[in-house]
């Protein structure tokens, strides 16, 4: 410590040790922050269409367009060390060959920013519930919520997918036993990235729900599921089945 240069080196060297130790303690401190994530995921509509991967392609593939409802409360994933949560919804369906793992394809994803995250245009903008006025158009400030709900709460109704999925084989119609499954990455400021917890881990409870009912990909061009649960839907079906057209008001 006798000269300026040696003192600079000594102080800086010990600073790196302190910085690393504090970062390690911050990373560990997230484990005492309880997590109780819950989510209800349901299929709203699924259609299969034939298309091509790009304009000049000769290959035709089958694409599934999956609409879904989701009601999720992931607010406990956000603690002081959460930079952002990458949320994704995937369709999981068994492989055609026995013994092979099931196929997974992401149909929708979102980046949910933490409180300290600066504004980015890729952050998720929660669709506004019906009947609310959109805010004045301006850039939200850093850390400001862009959602009508608290941070980490999502209420999506008949949400369109971001990605239309296809299978390796290019065939997707009539595949059965498919499910929608929620997944996420919690990306911290310091420490390790954490995936969806399906099992309890200390104070972190497993994700409650997060999987939809089993569904099947319909055949191409299949008519929408007949709605027989309501009186109106039932009537329309009866008329159609009998070769009559339901009477419309505008003719």
């Amino acid at each position, binding site marked *: *410590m*006798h000269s300026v240069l040696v003192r600079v080196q*000594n*102080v800086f060297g*010990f*600073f790196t040790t*302190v910085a690393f*130790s504090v970062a390690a303690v*911050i990373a560990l401190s997230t484990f005492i922050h309880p997590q109780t994530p819950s989510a209800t995921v349901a299929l709203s509509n699924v259609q299969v269409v034939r298309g091509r991967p790009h304009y000049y392609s000769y290959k035709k593939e089958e694409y599934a367009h999956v609409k879904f409802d989701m009601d999720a409360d992931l607010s406990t994933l956000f603690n*002081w060390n959460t930079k952002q949560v990458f949320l994704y919804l995937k369709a999981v369906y068994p492989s055609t060959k026995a013994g092979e793992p099931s196929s997974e394809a992401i149909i929708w994803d979102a980046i949910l920013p933490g409180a300290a995250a600066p504004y980015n245009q890729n952050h998720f903008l929660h669709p506004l519930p019906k009947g609310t006025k959109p805010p004045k158009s301006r850039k939200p400030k850093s850390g400001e919520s862009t959602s009508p709900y608290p941070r980490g709460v999502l209420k999506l109704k008949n949400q369109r997918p971001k990605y239309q999925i296809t299978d390796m084989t290019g065939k997707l119609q009539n595949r059965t036993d498919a499910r929608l499954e929620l997944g996420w990455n919690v990306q911290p400021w310091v420490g390790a990235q954490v995936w969806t917890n399906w099992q309890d881990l200390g104070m972190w409870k497993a994700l409650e729900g997060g999987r939809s009912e089993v569904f099947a990909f319909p055949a191409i061009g299949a008519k929408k599921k007949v709605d027989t649960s309501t009186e109106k839907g039932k009537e329309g079906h009866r008329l159609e089945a009998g070769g009559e057209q339901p009477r419309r008001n505008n003719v």
Partner: protein
Amino acid sequence: MADQLLEQVRDAVEGQIDFEGQRLAELITTVLLGGVGILAFLVGFMSQDIKLALYIGLAGTGLTFLAVVPPWPFYNKNPEGWLPARSAAAGISIDVDGQKVG
């Protein structure tokens, strides 16, 4: 003249401190930086604000650099004196464990 000036500049840049000062500088580094690290974590955790923790840590580090790096006068309170100069005629007498060597 130029030599003297150069000597002064070199002294200022080197910023030497005495042995007691070195011990003190080492102690101040450890206590200040360690304390700042603990304080940054506690304040950040209490307010659940990681940016606050970062800024407290950086400010404390800056303070430590300021306190330790320049050769402040209190690091030079116990200067080590040179031995008195001897004339060559008197001979050199070196004591090693009570025995005359030179």
